[in-house]
């Protein structure tokens, strides 16, 4: 009834090509942004920031990055944790080497450095695909973690091998370090998330995104119609790594503040982000958010319900968490292999036909 194209006239090509052609979607989008920018910063406390919202936003960026590579480009990667580590360590080295330069620039530069590293590790994708490529990126994961453990220069020769984010400010307000207020951490991540999502969305529906999808759907056919696989694959790796690097930099500098590479950026992180992308929906920006929310918020919610409400022993709650999340992953993969994004899409289709869906 209210959710339909009819009556929403477009008078320019620009309007016709917009991301949200349906008026209701547009309002919803602006509403979400308004809440995120104008309401939450005033209500947020340390717990909400550190436990839920900041990790959700950061993982969203990582999921967007991996989604570009895997969902749009069709290249399976298990190196996300390693690339996040590149972002984190690049950010750390930049922060400590150039303390006067704004942290925002450092985060962007860290993304750029990760893009270069990602493109280098993407070279094998020109020769191998599928599972074999996954193994090649797995090598990147282990190599990068080993590198940051082994070479003391990366952690400024500290005794423990940890890197600690010093305090850095944006317009006079601390955004890293222990004195950063919750809302400032949240706002920094939110700005990066919004920008990443906008860029990713517009890249994926432009020429470059179409070449990625062509390669994904059938690389030989794509080559025949004139898509350069070298360019398409390497840009997919570079752009994806750029976002993953930004998320790694924020993960270290804003969220945790101190990081140990093996623990924070191990193979588990690669799988976690991959699960987010798969559960959320391959080839969907919304899916990246949905997947990140699912895997960040659900464990905390289960912990709160099981531990704080029902008073169960903490170890049982932790085990139940694994069981429930595992079951839900299986359930979604069987019932909806295309992820939460597909459910969302179906819901919208139904809504379009409402009140008489068929």
């Amino acid at each position, binding site marked *: 009834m209210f959710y339909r194209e009819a009556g929403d006239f477009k008078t320019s090509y620009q309007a016709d090509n917009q991301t949200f052609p349906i008026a209701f979607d547009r309002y919803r989008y602006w509403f979400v942004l308004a809440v995120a920018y104008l309401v939450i910063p005033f209500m947020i406390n340390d*717990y909400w920031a550190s436990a839920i919202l900041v990790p959700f936003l950061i993982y969203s960026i990582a999921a967007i990055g991996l989604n570009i590579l895997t969902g749009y480009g069709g290249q399976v990667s298990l190196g996300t944790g390693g690339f996040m580590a590149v972002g984190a360590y690049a950010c750390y080295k930049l922060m400590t080497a150039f303390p006067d330069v704004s942290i925002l620039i450092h985060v962007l530069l860290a993304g750029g450095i990760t893009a270069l590293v990602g493109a280098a590790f993407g070279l094998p994708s020109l020769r191998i695909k599928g599972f074999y490529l996954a193994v090649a990126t797995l090598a990147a994961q282990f190599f990068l973690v080993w590198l940051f453990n082994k070479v003391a220069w990366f952690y400024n020769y500290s*005794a423990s091998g*940890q890197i600690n984010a010093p305090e850095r400010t944006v317009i006079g307000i601390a955004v890293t370090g*222990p004195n950063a207020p919750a809302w400032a951490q949240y706002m920094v991540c939110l700005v990066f998330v919004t920008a990443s999502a906008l860029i990713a969305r517009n890249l994926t529906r432009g020429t470059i995104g179409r070449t990625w999808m062509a390669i994904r759907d059938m690389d030989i056919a794509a080559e025949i119609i004139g898509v350069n696989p070298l360019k398409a694959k390497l840009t997919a790796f570079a752009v994806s790594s750029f976002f993953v690097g930004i998320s790694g930099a924020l993960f270290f500098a804003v969220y945790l503040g101190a990081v*140990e590479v*093996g623990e924070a950026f191990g193979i588990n992180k690669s799988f976690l982000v991959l699960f987010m992308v798969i559960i959320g929906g391959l080839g969907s920006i919304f899916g990246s958010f949905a997947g990140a929310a699912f895997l960040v918020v659900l464990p905390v919610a289960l912990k709160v319900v099981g531990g704080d409400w029902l008073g169960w022993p903490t170890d049982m709650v932790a085990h139940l968490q694994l069981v429930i999340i595992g079951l839900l992953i299986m359930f979604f993969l069987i019932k909806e292999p295309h992820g939460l994004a597909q459910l969302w899409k179906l819901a919208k289709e139904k809504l379009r036909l409402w009140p008489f869906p068929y």
Partner: protein
Amino acid sequence: MKMKTLAALTLTGALTAGMATADLVIPDLSYRTGPYAAGGTPFSDGYQDYFNLLNARDGGIGGEEIRIVSCETGFNTEKGVECYESTKAEGALVYQPLSTGITYQLIPKATADGIPIHSMGYGRTSAESGEVFNWVFNYPVNYWDGASIAIKYLMDENGGSLEGKKIALIYHNSGYGKEPIRTLEVLAEQHGFQLDLLAVDHPGQEQKSQWLQIRRTRPDHVLMWGWGVMNQVAIQEAANINYPMENFMGVWWSGAEIDVLPAGAGANGYKSMNFSPIKAYPVLDEIKAKVELAGDGSNVGSVIYNRGVLAAMLAAEAIAKAQEIHGVADITPAMMRDGMEALSITDERLEELGMAGISPEFSVSCQDHGGAGQAIVQQWDASSQTWNALTDFISSDQEVIAPLVEADASGFAAENNITPGCL
């Protein structure tokens, strides 16, 4: 789904905020799951049981009930942060995360929030320097003490000299395992032994190549900085290559019953340091008699359990001290810090508490948050399945450690714009 969870969580927030009463809140950031649960479970059991004993026997401390808030960290820093944030609002008095990684994470946060951290025998060694780390305590002993004690003991064993000997360190490849390296390097230079470093990656099940290397190079002694499943695997691997067990020594986190039992008779003769020796403490009988035991109750009296009891006792004594200093029963984290800084443990007091000999005498001051810096060496007897103390408490070599602590602490102070001083 998301909106529902959000609503549910907000509701919880409101509920827990409403429940906060005038208790002494002790968060128990424990891990009973994952590859480190073997160590995390008995520690948490001991920690909880002692506080429950105080509640049951004395009605808390100074007439104020103790409320334990458990939170499962799984030895994972992200979950540790979540636990910290979720418990700090309830008025947590002191954090003991039993994880060097989480301690590193919490040092800046807790300092900013004004909540003390007690990393007993782990964490950042240079936190011993109380003027830089006002809110962090690591008494009674730390990793650099451990490195020094180990070398001291090995010197004694080798007739006073380690000249030309080869010592291998097999360590957990994390902040924890890397802690002793700096001290060992200094000691190696000083005493003329060769130090081989062998890193084992988290979680530590894969050690074949490291032990192959040990088999090839045949070091005179092997030291281990391991935790969780890594200990059991290392001891089993050492037994597999027939490494002489009496030359294999672990830090205090690599010397529990659970670490040696899987290797059976092969583990006989394995040594470890310990700062909470195994004895028949009367307090353990009292716990068994008066408390509904935490966990499955099977850990009472084991190495790590005793250490949990020691940790709880030190916290309880600090709370009592804080109450005495400030004249109020319901203390704040800031008062708790004062209590910890004024803490003094004497043999008479330990006797009174029914745990004579669990710790050497020590006192804490504003300058020195490190305490005694002493540990014993114990040896595993596989036939009777007991740890036998080989030595009395050995002191570390402060001449070596003090300058290292000074250097590291002043580096931290410079990096973080801290002017060293007392609060």
